[in-house]
């Protein structure tokens, strides 16, 4: 789990050019940066729609499905990516099916199903882990990710998945947006909202499965939710916030990878911390802009009011 010491021989110099050159010294690091960029773009776009559709719980559940996927693949001797994709798709179908069967009490049942699916997935992962007879020293890396062993082949696979995902959004982005903003009106206009919802969940599952290879099952969620939520605080315009989400995601990933390269703690910690810090900063700035009086001392505010 823990990297024995920082990988870099010298610390960051705070000179961007030389830092960047040092960062790209090793081929594995170049792979990690490429994979991280692809993943950040994809997770940003998918996460933007996820936040818009208020499906963070489903997104989190799907992201955890990478854990049973990885352990099942380990048990069967398949590649981890295959396991990720199978389990994430299965979970997306389970959640999608439960929401489309007209539940009596709507949203609360939906969340109960999502929670159950999540626990069952993790329980399966634990079962596979205990059935696996071999020594598994670093099971945490399945959960928390590692950027050390990414091969050029994996980068190519990620690129293909990301392209497919972006094609999906290019094709159905407009009706999906319509359905996400106002489902009733969209349905009345003949938009197949239910098929779109299921399709979106499956794409979310695929994107999550790809992302989990870098960040691990437990931390995918940060890349999905944080850039989108931050961007939506900054601007309400659709295209601007979508592009901003992608940019923020890439920035967070690069910064996280660089920090993990120069300092000794795990990459997942840095990625989540950078993402969270950015969100808090933007939220505070937003609050200061929207309610400037809140920052003034109480006395001056009441004086201004009088």
């Amino acid at each position, binding site marked *: 789990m*823990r990297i024995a010491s920082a990988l870099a021989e010298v610390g960051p110099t705070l000179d961007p050019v030389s830092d960047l050159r040092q960062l790209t010294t090793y081929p594995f690091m170049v792979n990690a940066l490429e994979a991280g960029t692809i993943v950040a773009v994809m997770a940003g776009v998918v996460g933007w729609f996820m936040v818009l559709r208020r499906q963070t719980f489903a997104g989190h559940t799907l992201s955890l499905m990478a854990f049973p996927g990885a352990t099942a693949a380990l048990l069967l001797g398949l590649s981890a990516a295959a396991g990720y994709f199978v389990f994430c798709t299965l979970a997306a179908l389970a959640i999608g099916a439960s929401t489309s069967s007209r539940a009596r009490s709507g949203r609360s049942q939906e969340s109960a199903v*999502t*929670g159950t699916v999540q626990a069952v997935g993790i*329980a399966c992962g634990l079962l596979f882990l205990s*059935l696996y007879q071999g020594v598994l020293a670093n099971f945490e890396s399945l*959960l928390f990710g590692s950027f050390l062993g990414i091969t050029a082949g994996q980068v190519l696979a990620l690129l293909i998945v990301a392209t497919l995902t972006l094609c999906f959004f290019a094709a159905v982005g407009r009706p999906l947006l319509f359905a996400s903003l106002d489902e009733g009106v969209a349905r009345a206009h003949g938009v197949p909202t239910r098929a779109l919802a299921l399709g979106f969940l499956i794409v979310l599952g695929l994107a999550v499965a790809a992302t989990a290879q870098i960040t691990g099952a437990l931390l995918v969620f940060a890349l999905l939710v*944080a850039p989108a939520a931050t961007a939506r605080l900054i601007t309400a315009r659709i295209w601007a916030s979508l592009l901003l989400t992608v940019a923020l995601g890439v920035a967070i990933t690069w910064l996280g990878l660089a920090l993990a390269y120069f300092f000794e703690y795990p990459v*997942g*910690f840095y990625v*989540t911390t950078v993402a969270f810090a950015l969100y808090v900063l933007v939220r505070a700035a937003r609050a200061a802009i929207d309610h400037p009086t809140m920052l003034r001392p109480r006395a001056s505010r009441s004086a201004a009011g009088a």
Partner: protein
Amino acid sequence: MMFAHEFFRNALLAGTSIALACGLVGHFLVLRAQVFAGDALSHVAFTAALAAAAAGVDTRIGLFAGTVAFALILGGIGERASADDVTIGIVFAWILGLGVFFLALFSTGSGGGNGLLGARALFGSIFGLSAGDARLAAVIGVGIVATILAIARPLLFASVDPAVAAARGVPVRVLGLLFLALAGATAGEATQAVGALLLLGLLAAPAGAAQRLSANPYVALALSGAFAVLAVWLGLVLSYLIPSLPPSTAVIGVAAAIYLLSFLLTTTALRARFGPRPRGSIGLIGGN
């Protein structure tokens, strides 16, 4: 026989009280559509346990302090309107990242054993509880159950219709905070049994099943508790009989099976009541 083993009796004692607490708290989580908050609490439990270990404090103190504190924070930010789920999500994604940090920190301090502690916090170790652990878990579980039962009536009112409840003088906000604190304590408690990653199943599945089967909230509350206890009992027995089956997996497996059964029962019952769907109902076909 399995009851001859002390570890099994300990597991049964702790498991029963934990299950009862999870069943009752889970009922309200589902009713109030706060399952995602339960999800967040369960992940906070992991970080809290590891933070306590890294600081050299008893894990249980870390667990309860961490989950209850996070529950109160959730209650604090919960009053703002729109971005709730997203805020919860961002905060707990970061807390999880902190958990990784503590795991790394702890491993530098202790040399080995970090994987074991991490695994225990994530997946629980109900067969590893000592008699003292089990008794303490039982006492805390009974305390949670008693508190929930004491506030059940106003809490139900506040959950089903907060506006009317507030108008009638029910302290909706205080109840909500108290309930979240109880949910936090339950998460801390259940982490010992089924682990941080699995306790959501014990919160969501029995409660979801119970609410499918009964529209009466009190009946559903009782059913939810009963289902959770049943899941733990059957799960423990199954895992005792099949050594390669981890107890946490068995418990969650039974809980999920109960949910699936209730799902099938209610959908077939509905179909039997209303008969085959009429062919010409354009609204239904066109609506899809």
